[in-house]
């Protein structure tokens, strides 16, 4: 149990670091995927070691989560492509039109 949680925390931190530090949008996306998968590991871990391990609820939650992650990745990639077409660049530090 502790091992699973430690793996999950590690994965989450790696993903978070990637999102926060990488300048490339696709790399940031990969970081997000890592964070999502860390959450999925948590789902499975808590489900396996809970009292309700007989039903498949945790598994279903995870499958849902993966499906949503896939969809989110598709949307994210599409956004990246559009941004690239629009600005000829996907470097996140150059995207600052939200500046106040």
């Amino acid at each position, binding site marked *: 149990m502790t091992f699973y949680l430690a793996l999950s925390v590690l994965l989450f931190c790696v993903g*978070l670091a990637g*999102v*926060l*530090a990488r300048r490339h949008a696709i790399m*940031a996306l990969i970081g997000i995927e890592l964070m999502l998968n860390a959450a999925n590991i948590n789902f499975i871990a808590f489900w396996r070691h809970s009292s309700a391990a007989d039903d498949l609820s945790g598994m279903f939650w995870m499958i849902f989560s993966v499906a949503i992650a896939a969809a989110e990745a598709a949307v994210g990639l599409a956004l990246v492509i559009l941004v690239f077409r629009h600005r000829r660049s996907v470097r*996140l*530090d150059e*995207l*600052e*039109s*939200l*500046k*106040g």
Partner: protein
Amino acid sequence: MTGVLDILWLIPALPLLVSAILSLTPARVKGGAAPLSIGALGLGFLIACAALAEAVSDPGQVRAHNFTWFEFGSSAVKIGWVLDPLSALMLVMVTFVAGWIFVFSIGYMSHDENFTRFYCFLSLFTSAMLGVVMSNSLLMLFACWEVMGLASYLLIGFWHHRPSAAAAARKAFIYTRIGDIGFLLGMLWLYAETGTLLLYDNGAGCLEANALTQLAGAAISTGMAASTGIALLLFCGAIGKSGQIPLHVWLPDAMEGPTPVSALIHAATMVAAGVFLMARIHPLSTATASAKPIVTATAPANATAQSAQPAVRMEAAPKSQAHAEAAAKPTEAGGDSTSSPTLTLNVMAWVGALTALLASLVAVAQYDIKRILAYSTVSQLGFMFLGLATGGPAVGVFHLLTHAFFKALLFLGAGSVIHGCHEEQDIRRMGGLWRRMPATFGTYAVGMMALSGVPLLFSGFWSKDEILHSALAWSGSKWPFALGLVAAVATAFYMTRQMAYVFFGPHRGHPAMYEQGHRIPVTQPHESPMVMTLPLGVLAACAILLTVVGTPMWPWLHSVLSGHAPEVRREVSVGVLFAMLISILAAGTGFTAGWICYMRRRASGFNDGDPLQTRIPSIWRCLESRGWIDELYKMSFGIWTAAAGRFCDWLDRIVLGGGVRMIQNAALATAWMGRLWDEFFLNGGFARGCEQTRNSADRASLVQNGQIQRYLRILAGALALVALWIIWK
């Protein structure tokens, strides 16, 4: 057997739909307009025929279909439609005549660029008329009546680029509106008295026994029964719509519209609506406190010949009985119930007879071919009201039906003549057309003979004869009969004059133009195309064939309209023969006089004076200028209205305008004060505040550099802080 009743609403709905479609059609699309309109009317005609067959199968029964339109509070406004012989006959007539007028218009309007718009208006007009005819509620009738007023305005002013057409449209609209105020008031009064505007509603309608007794019993302060007052007010509406004296002046001016419109307005629809209204509410105008509303016909001795007129049952009740009843209820009835015809009927008969006489005399002295016909229409409408008042609905409506056919025929014939003579309307410029336009001439002659009452063969003779007969047998005054008789003579006279001018003698058109130096290329008058002569032929045939339904030997129409099964009568009484003799004599006199004046000495040139003009110039001048009635109105109402307008203008400019200007100046002064205060006191503080806000915002916005990762870092830091706080706790 309720099948026809259920789809009766389709008859007006179809033309309405067509008109809606056409109103959305661009003007350049001309193909579909005529077939669509005619198809809708044709379908309506078939339904109307089925309805007529059903109505006639049991003429005494009134079938009505009512439904609730809307409710407010506890009272509901109901409308509906009705199927009885009267409405069924009118439906058949209107769809038939209007259908042929539509066909005629294909030819007549073919060169007009607003062809589609024309058919749109025509359909709207016909739809409104059909709605009037079949509605079972005065409210719905009034609504359709007003739609018809609007459509007539649009149609009379169809060529609105002509100032005279625009003026005529306005005149028609305003004059009919004057009558409509009476209609509206009568309707409101009726609603106040009975609480319903439905005509037939299983005993609860306002034309049925209960309501009639109640209305006849309810007296207002002057001693007049409520039913009389209401009927008179409704008659005002009919006067306006049907062009009776004193509101007749719009009708001749309505000739400014295209000729098919004149035919439609003057034959099948608009003017017939007034007569129809009075026929519809006839029970109301005959209701007296003394007579039970439903009395089986107790025909007096002098009316045995036409005992199939139970419609005269109430006013023809023996005098002694009326006296006795009136004496029994002295408080309830004023002067009108002591003599046999009610006040309403008296007014109707007098108005009708006077109109018939004056209009027919004026028609003698007109030169515009359509204007002659217009005055003839006014005169014939007067006959119809005379018939309604003296003989009941059957007599008036029979003339209405026959008149619809032959007057439509005459107007379309006139349209054909005008078309053939290249938009010439002055009969002094015509002449000799019988050789060049044989088809038009033949049909026009049929219409002319029907109108002036040539005996035995033509429908107009029978209907007019019936009116004269019932006027002769009327228990009121004999004067309306005498006036009608003179009008009948004048009718034959002016029609002979018109025929002589238009179709006989030398052609006078183009030489006169040459004299005036016109350079118009000379083309001879020509016969109109098939699409215009065919309707003429059909209507001419109907003008003759319609005879069969109304002769004294087989008074089918009469029986059906008064709710009896038709029967054949073998013997004809002396009274009828006498009346026939009189009306034959009247027509003969008119013809002979016309012949002597116009056929023997034919006018040879445009400037030849009318034979009557040279003989009795003073009367002629009066008639030619139409009795100076327009001028009279201009001098009386016109001046007052103009003065009132000028007074209002003055009031507006000086009094109200001055007040407005004062308020305006005060407001301006206040605004200046406010502005000074704002600029010198408020603005200083406000500007300072704005600057402060801007500065702090600038500082705050330094955090926002727009980079997503800066935001995420802050987010992650916050998350870490929250996590630490949770763990630490």
